[in-house]
C-alpha cells in the first residue's frame, strides 16, 4: 500500500491544525519561564552545547578554511613582504623577550625582598571559536574546551593581546564565553596611569562604557584600561582597551582585540593552588620564530 496518507493517519488532522497556536503559546510560556528563572535554561544550554560541540567542531573547520581561502587569496609577493615584516617584528620581540626575562628576574628578587605573595600562575588554553550564533543581540561565542580541559567558570578569555570576555558556562567539553561587548558584561578595571578603578560595561556595540567612575577622575584620551583583578575572578593587569572619547555622554573605551573577528582565543586559567604551593612564576615559552607568512 502506498504511504500516501501515513502522516495524516498517525496524527489526526485537527491536532496538527491547532499546532501553530499551541506552539506559539508554548514558546511564549518558555520565554516567560526563562525570564523568571534562568538556571534550568543554563543547564539545558550546557547539555545541548556539549552534545553539539563535536559536530560543530568538525563542520566549522572546513567552512572556515573555505572562507579563509576566499578571504585571503594572497600572492607570493604579499607573502614575501609579510615574511620580511614578521622577521623584523620577531627580531624586535626577541629583544623584548630578553629584557622581559631580565625584568622578571629583577621583579622576583624584589618580591622576595618584600616577601610579596606571588601572583597565581597563568595557564593558557587555546581554542577555536566554533559558534557565534548570537547575532546582533547576544554577544557570546562557544569554545570546544570544557571541564575536561580544566576550563573553569569565570576564566578570562584573551585574543592575541587583549581581554575579549569571560567564561560564563562550562560543560564537559564546551564552554560559553560572554564577550565584553555584551549588554550583560561588567568587568572590574582600572585606568593604568592613574590607578582609578571603574567598571567596564558592554553596550552591544563596538565601544565599551566606563561606569562607576569617581567624580572628577580626569580621564585622558588614549589612557590604557586593564583588568583590576577585583572580585578575584579575572587576573589583574590584562589589557582591555584604550579610552577613545570622554564627554557628556560618558567615557568610552575601544577594546584592544578585534572582537568582531575572533578565530582563536586563549582561556586564561589561574591555577591558584599550584601557585600558592610553589610560589613560583614560570617564564612563558620562548616565542617561536616565524619562518613564513600567516
Amino acid at each position, binding site marked *: *500500500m*502506498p*504511504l*500516501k496518507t*501515513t*502522516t*495524516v493517519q498517525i*496524527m489526526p*488532522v485537527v491536532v*496538527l*491544525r491547532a*499546532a*501553530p497556536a499551541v*506552539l*506559539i503559546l*508554548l*514558546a*511564549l*510560556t*518558555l*520565554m516567560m*519561564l*526563562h*525570564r523568571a528563572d534562568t538556571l534550568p*535554561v543554563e543547564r*539545558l*544550554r550546557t547539555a*545541548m*552545547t556539549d552534545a*553539539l560541540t563535536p559536530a*560543530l567542531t568538525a*563542520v*566549522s573547520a572546513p*567552512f*572556515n578554511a573555505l*572562507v*579563509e581561502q576566499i*578571504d585571503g587569496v594572497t600572492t607570493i609577493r604579499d607573502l614575501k613582504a609579510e615574511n620580511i615584516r614578521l622577521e623584523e617584528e620577531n627580531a624586535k620581540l626577541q629583544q623584548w623577550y630578553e629584557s622581559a626575562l631580565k625584568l622578571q628576574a629583577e621583579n622576583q628578587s624584589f618580591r622576595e625582598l618584600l616577601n610579596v605573595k606571588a601572583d597565581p600562575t597563568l595557564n593558557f588554553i587555546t581554542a577555536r*571559536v*566554533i*559558534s*557565534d*550564533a*548570537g*547575532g*546582533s*543581540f*547576544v554577544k*557570546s*561565542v*562557544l569554545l570546544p574546551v570544557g571541564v575536561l580541559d580544566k576550563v573553569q567558570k569565570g576564566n578570562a578569555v584573551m585574543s592575541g593581546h587583549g581581554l575579549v570576555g569571560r567564561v560564563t558556562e562550562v560543560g564537559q567539553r564546551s564552554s*560559553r564565553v560572554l564577550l565584553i561587548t555584551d*549588554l550583560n558584561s561588567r568587568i572590574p578595571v582600572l585606568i593604568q596611569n592613574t590607578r582609578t578603578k571603574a567598571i567596564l560595561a558592554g553596550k*552591544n*556595540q563596538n565601544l565599551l562604557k566606563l561606569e562607576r567612575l569617581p567624580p572628577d577622575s580626569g580621564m585622558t584620551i588614549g589612557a590604557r584600561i586593564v583588568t583590576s583583578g577585583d572580585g578575584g575572578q579575572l587576573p589583574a593587569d590584562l589589557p582591555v582597551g584604550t579610552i577613545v572619547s570622554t564627554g557628556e555622554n560618558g567615557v568610552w573605551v575601544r577594546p584592544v582585540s578585534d*572582537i*568582531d*573577528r*575572533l*578565530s582563536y582565543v586563549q582561556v586564561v586559567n589561574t591555577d591558584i593552588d599550584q601557585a600558592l604551593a610553589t610560589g613560583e612564576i614560570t617564564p612563558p615559552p620562548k616565542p617561536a620564530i616565524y619562518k613564513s607568512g600567516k
Partner: protein
Amino acid sequence: MDPEWNESLLRVVGRWGLVLLVLTALFVLSAIPLKITHLGEIRPVFMLMAIYYWTILRPSPWLPVAFFVIGLVLDLLAAYPLGMHALIFVLAQWVTGSQRKFLLGQSFLVIWAGFAAIALGAGALQWALFSLFNLTLFSAKLMLISAVLSVFLFPLLALPLSVVHKALADDPSSVP
C-alpha cells in the same frame, strides 16, 4: 517483505534524508562563525528562507513542529531567551501559510517581495521581543541590515531549495 512497500520506504527515507540535509546545512550556516559576517553580528536568517519556501511550495502539517524544535535548539545554542527563535519561526510559517494561495501562482518577484515582508517582520519582532525580555531598548540597525541581507540572499538559497522541491515533486508518495 513486500517489495512495493520496501520501495516506498526507500523513497520516504530518501525524501526525508534530502530535507534533513538541507536543514542541517542551513542550521550550520546559522551557527558557525562566518568571517564575512563580522562575528555573526549581521547574519542572514537562513532558516527563514527554508520556512518561507517550503510553506509555499511544500506545505506539510509537520512544518511548524519541525521549525519549533529547530528554533529551540538555536535558542539554546545562541543563548537567546528560550523560545524566541521557535516563536518567530512558527509565526513566520503561519503568516506565510495564510498567504499561500495568493503567492502560489505569482512570479518570482512577487514571492521575493513576500519574503522581504516576512524577513523584515521577523526582524522587527525579534528586536521587540529582545527589548522586552531585557527591558532595554536595543539598537535596531544591525537587525535591519541582517534582514536586508537575508532578502538579497534569498534567490541564491531558493535555487538549492527548488532542486529539493523538484526531487520531492517527482515522488508520488509525498505528502500533499
